[in-house]
């Protein structure tokens, strides 16, 4: 039943470019799709495993620079550079995860913020490799076995495929044996250890897998914008991405898409209010904390409240308790 809706949604998504026929809007949707994958990777790390990572933009940057350097300076084809970037980002994620394997919650957050700052400094100052402030320009557009994704509409299908594949992969991971271990670590890492879960190993795995997806997105992004800039991968960017995952609901994959949609598409629609973007986000966050502390599609979110209303048992905070979980 649920799968049928997903397939319908996918079919509808296939038809979006011919329907809206506006390059600018298609471009926004493309960006929405790519950020969605970042939000999904954040959800995997923060929402499912409970590790508050505030340095995701650094991994996007690693993927982006890796792919840009491989294609521009070494002449590798897009698809190879794209895949290598994902692997590279995942490897760095595993190393960082290894270093943080014993760090408690808040220390891990500080380490990731620090890592983001380090990456930023490396991007800016390793001029022979990263081009410093100038960044790397003329990054080739994606080209898979001779097919050029050179228009927004063509790229749309690549981005859609990337998002769908990532979503399915994440869904599989979260519902696997490994996903259950992640959730146990989030809920109570000591109890997880008592249950025989190798907590340190799974923390490293979680970080590595999340980083693969973030790195792939960074790479795809850089081939879309054709320019790698060191100013795109700052702490501000990381926090903005984190907001996408939190807004939609940690622990809900579909929520990540909704959160990203709100934070990417709405500011674009109201372009004339762009200056007030942060104000809008701030107010939104306060309202969310008050009414949907676990995000729109998280626990006690919109979905569960609708069900509660339908069952005529809206009991505010206790609705979950009343409906028996």
């Amino acid at each position: 039943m649920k799968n049928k809706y997903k397939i319908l949604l996918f079919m509808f998504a296939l038809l979006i470019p011919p329907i809206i026929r506006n390059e600018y809007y298609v471009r926004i949707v493309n960006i929405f799709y790519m950020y969605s994958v970042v939000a999904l990777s954040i959800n995997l790390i923060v929402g499912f495993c409970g590790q508050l990572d505030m340095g995701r933009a650094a991994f996007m940057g690693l993927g982006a620079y890796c792919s840009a350097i491989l294609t521009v300076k070494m002449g590798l084809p897009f698809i190879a550079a794209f895949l290598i970037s994902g692997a590279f980002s995942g490897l760095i994620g595993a190393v960082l995860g290894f270093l943080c394997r014993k760090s408690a919650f808040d220390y891990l957050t500080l380490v990731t913020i620090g890592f983001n700052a380090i990456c930023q400094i490396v991007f800016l100052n390793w001029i022979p490799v990263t081009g410093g402030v100038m960044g790397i320009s003329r990054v080739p557009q994606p080209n898979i076995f001779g097919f050029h994704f050179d228009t927004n509409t063509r790229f749309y299908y690549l981005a859609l495929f990337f998002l769908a594949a990532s979503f399915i992969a994440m869904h599989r991971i979260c519902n696997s044996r490994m996903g259950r271990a992640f959730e146990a670590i989030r809920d109570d890492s000591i109890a997880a250890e008592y249950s025989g879960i190798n907590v340190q190993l799974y923390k490293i795995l979680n970080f590595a897998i999340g980083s693969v997806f973030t790195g792939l997105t960074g790479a795809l992004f850089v081939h879309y914008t054709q320019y790698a800039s060191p100013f795109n991968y700052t702490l501000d960017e990381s926090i903005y991405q984190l907001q996408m995952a939190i807004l939609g609901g940690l622990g809900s994959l579909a929520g990540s898409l909704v959160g990203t949609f709100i934070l990417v598409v709405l500011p674009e629609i109201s372009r004339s209010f762009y200056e007030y973007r942060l104000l809008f986000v701030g107010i939104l966050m306060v309202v969310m904390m008050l009414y949907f502390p676990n995000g729109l599609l998280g626990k006690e979110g919109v979905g569960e409240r609708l069900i509660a209303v339908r069952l005529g048992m809206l009991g505010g905070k206790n609705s979950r308790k009343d409906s028996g979980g």
Partner: protein
Amino acid sequence: MLAIDNLVVSYGKIDALHDMSISLEPGALTTLIGANGAGKTTLLKTISGLMKPKSGTITYEGTSLIGLEPHEIIALGIAHCPEGRRVLARQTVYENMKMGAYVRNDDEVGEDIEYFFKKFPQLEGRRHHLSGFLSGGEQQMLAICRALMSRPKILLLDEPSMGLSPVLVKEVFKIIKDIHDEGVTILLVEQNAKMALSIADKGYVLEVGRIIAEDTAANLMNSKSIQDSYLGG
């Protein structure tokens, strides 16, 4: 079956356990009684690998447990049911049970879960409830079931009576006795000395990190000094 010799465990510079030696006989229910801060929980945590000893040996069926990680020790057949229950509050009863079988890779996990549901009908009715919403007694049953789901040979129980009403304490002790009757070796740590000694075969009395008495449970029950200090005269 499990032999601990001259174990020293410390928190920083302070030794919590001094030169402790304990042995568990196969199939026996051994209890460790003592006041707060005597080192009971520290001992269990050290056996299950959550704390590393400063010196001494822990040998389980001929293999040394020193240096093994908690998940490896569980896989060897030593399950730990922690103090304060520590159920995964945001997961359902069923998911918690399944989590207990994490180290197993046979296909009888489902059957075992049904077996425990049959044994504990209260949990059966709450199969799909979030375990954070269970009562204290139900959570304790769930925590014990979760530990048993790894099919342990030795079960370490840390203060199963903590925070439970007297009626529930009786019920939980009955469950522990049942598990013991099924052949699981149990190390029970308790502050409720009277209850613990009444079901145990053998007891150790712990005081500030040292064992001050070791005897059969019946003898300890009848000992004057133990009665004065632990059994309320």
